[in-house]
């Protein structure tokens, strides 16, 4: 590194992340991944999708490896699908739920990591309430451990974005011809950020984000998404609409007036289904707030692919886990 060029740090993430086009060092963020790599992951996931349908739902790819779910924040869906993905790859699996507030009081994040490293694990799947936590952990674990980001603060949720585009590809073969809208609390959403990156890399020509101005980050255009405050206008002729969960605390901190007004302005009602393109589908990363951001008729209707997303999550996570596992090393 040129001593005078303090700028150089900027490309570091990409190098840290990818060992080669076919193998990942860590899986932290989608931003720096290439289109061929994303498509490879989807193809691999496709081949794993069959495993769940077999009488013996296991392949021996990660036999003898130890994977730890390290969750500093509550989760059901993500935690469970990672666990199933790891087990179907024959890995030994451990769930550790760390009360974030407890770690704040005593043991630091680094100490927690050191202790787990001492147990000779091969991979950490991390969820943490702070943006950048997975990145921080990846920089502080020993060489032979891979880190998978299962959601960090508002920053990224890359495996969710991967399973979303996997689901989209089931319906639309050509990403370059579709319109995609993400609706709701974009400001606080790691799912939205990772999805926008993925869609941009796959050259989706029309990416929209829809919500009240208080929940749309200013300058979101620079990430490649067009903001809409009017839901009807925003979802018009879209092929894919992804609804985000509205957290209750948004009402308490004056982002929106109340659930009722939100539902009227941004709730996905049967009437709004008619605005989509003919083949349009509706997605939701879960958990769904029925009657807040989406009506039951829509969530359970024939355009909804919400439950397929969950099933697809296992295959996509199997693909990411197998690509990220490091080859055997002698020491340790």
């Amino acid at each position, binding site marked *: *590194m040129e*001593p*005078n060029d*303090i*700028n150089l*740090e*900027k490309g*570091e*993430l990409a190098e840290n992340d990818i060992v080669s086009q076919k193998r990942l060092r860590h899986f932290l963020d989608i*931003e720096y991944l290439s289109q061929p790599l994303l498509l490879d992951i989807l193809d691999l996931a496709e081949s794993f999708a069959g495993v769940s349908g077999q009488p013996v739902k296991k392949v021996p790819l990660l036999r003898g490896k130890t994977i730890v779910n390290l969750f500093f924040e509550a989760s059901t869906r993500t935690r469970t699908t990672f666990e199933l993905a790891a087990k179907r790859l024959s890995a030994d699996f451990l769930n550790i739920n760390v009360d974030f507030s407890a770690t704040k009081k005593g043991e*630091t*994040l*680094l100490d927690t990591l050191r202790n787990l490293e001492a147990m000779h694990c091969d991979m950490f799947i991390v969820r*943490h309430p*702070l*943006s*950048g*936590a997975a*990145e*921080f952990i990846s920089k*502080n674990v020993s060489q032979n451990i891979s880190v998978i980001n299962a959601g*960090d*603060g*508002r*920053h*990224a949720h890359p495996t969710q974005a991967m399973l979303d585009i996997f689901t989209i590809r089931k319906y639309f073969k050509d990403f370059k011809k579709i319109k995609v809208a993400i609706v709701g609390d974009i400001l606080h959403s*790691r799912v939205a*950020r990772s999805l926008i990156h993925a869609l941009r890399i796959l050259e989706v020509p029309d990416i929209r984000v829809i919500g009240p101005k208080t929940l749309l*980050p*200013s*300058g*979101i255009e*620079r*990430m490649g998404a067009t903001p809409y405050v009017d839901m009807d206008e925003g979802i018009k002729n879209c092929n894919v609409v992804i609804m985000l969960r509205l957290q209750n605390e948004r009402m308490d901190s004056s982002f929106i007036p109340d659930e009722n007004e939100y539902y009227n302005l941004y709730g996905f009602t049967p009437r709004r289904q008619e605005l989509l393109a003919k083949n349009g589908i509706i997605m939701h990363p879960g958990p769904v707030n029925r009657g807040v951001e989406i009506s039951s008729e829509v969530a359970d209707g024939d355009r909804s692919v919400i439950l397929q997303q969950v099933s697809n999550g296992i295959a996509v996570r199997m693909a990411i886990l197998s690509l990220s596992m490091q080859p055997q090393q002698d020491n340790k």
Partner: protein
Amino acid sequence: MSDLIIKSANLINPPGEISGIHDIYIKDGKICGIDEDNVKLNSPIIIDAQDCYVTPGLIDLSVRFREPGLEKEATISSESKAAVASGITTVCYMPDTQPVIDTPAQIKLVQEIFKNVDLCDVKVLAALTRELDGERLSSMSELKHAGAIALTNCFSPIKNSLVLRRIMEYASGQDITIFYQPLNYHLANGGCVHEGEIANKLGLPGIPSAAESAAVAEAISLCKLTGVKLHLCRISCAESLTLIKNAQSQGIEVTSDVAIHQLFFDESFINNFNSNYHVTPPFRTNEDLISLREAISLGYITAICSDHQPHNEDARQAPFSSTLPGISSIEILLPLILDLVDEGVLDMQKAIEKVTRNPALLLNIDSGVIKKDFPADLCIFKREEWILEENRIQSAGRNTPFIGKKFSTKVKKTIRKGRVVYENK
């Protein structure tokens, strides 16, 4: 104390004062003459300053040496060594120690430790409110008489606009200068980076520029109402500069400063969650950076300070928003100032003024100029390349993004009250 003669020094002085190559004569800690052969010195030590520049000793408007209370981070002894390595002879000491400097006894304690370390002078800023709680006024007059040079509430919020008005009114009556860190804490809302592109991308909570400019606007209005001597600290955005410029053109006497790192970085450097770029106020856009450099050159910003905030390694070992903000930068203040000269932002004289005479004038102290009968506080430097290496940093804080940077200026000697307190061979 020996007398000194500094020979063939290239003097950098404020406009109207003697400049160029001269000999400086120093007796009893004071400058007793420039080029005056007839001054009688007692077997003086002669310092040959050929090929070197000599400036007044630097005055740093904001430092935190962490003592008392946070000695695990840094001490007055460790940080004074770092300060003199940058030609600094006077530091303004922020009151957010543990306990807070809000009593005359606390001021005396800090002054005493500086006296024992005996490397640079300290001007203590005491707390504006008790324990910096933003509500109960400190005993301003007592603090002033105990030696507080000005009062500040540091980064702690003032409870509301009415309390701020009372504080300013009372301080104005006691002829006390207020160092005010403009930030509307409701708008800042716990953010840790500039609300903009990087905050969006990294999902970090942002602080909008308006959180600063709204507070600047309020402070200027109340300054006009109360007539207090107001100094606005650590300006970071273009909107604030417009307000300051307008106030100054209306004859409102408001001064301001900027932290040296704000003149080198914008938000894009945080791209990779690098906590070395975690500062308060946050690095803003490239347009803001350009405006800050312009304001320095045009003089709306009166002074530049190091805003030195050393931290130990533990403070950095966490995800970005959990790390402690601040950069350890005191020992590279002068080299960075000269980088601004090399980059054409300021000429040498103006650049040096921002860290010498201008801070002296706003603190109302007899310093910041090389002149007969003034204290012999001097910095001798040479244009010479060197690289900042982590293991050679004098400060206890290694929290700086400047590690590995090449500088073109090296301080050779720092002289305080006629005594050499730093020497680089």
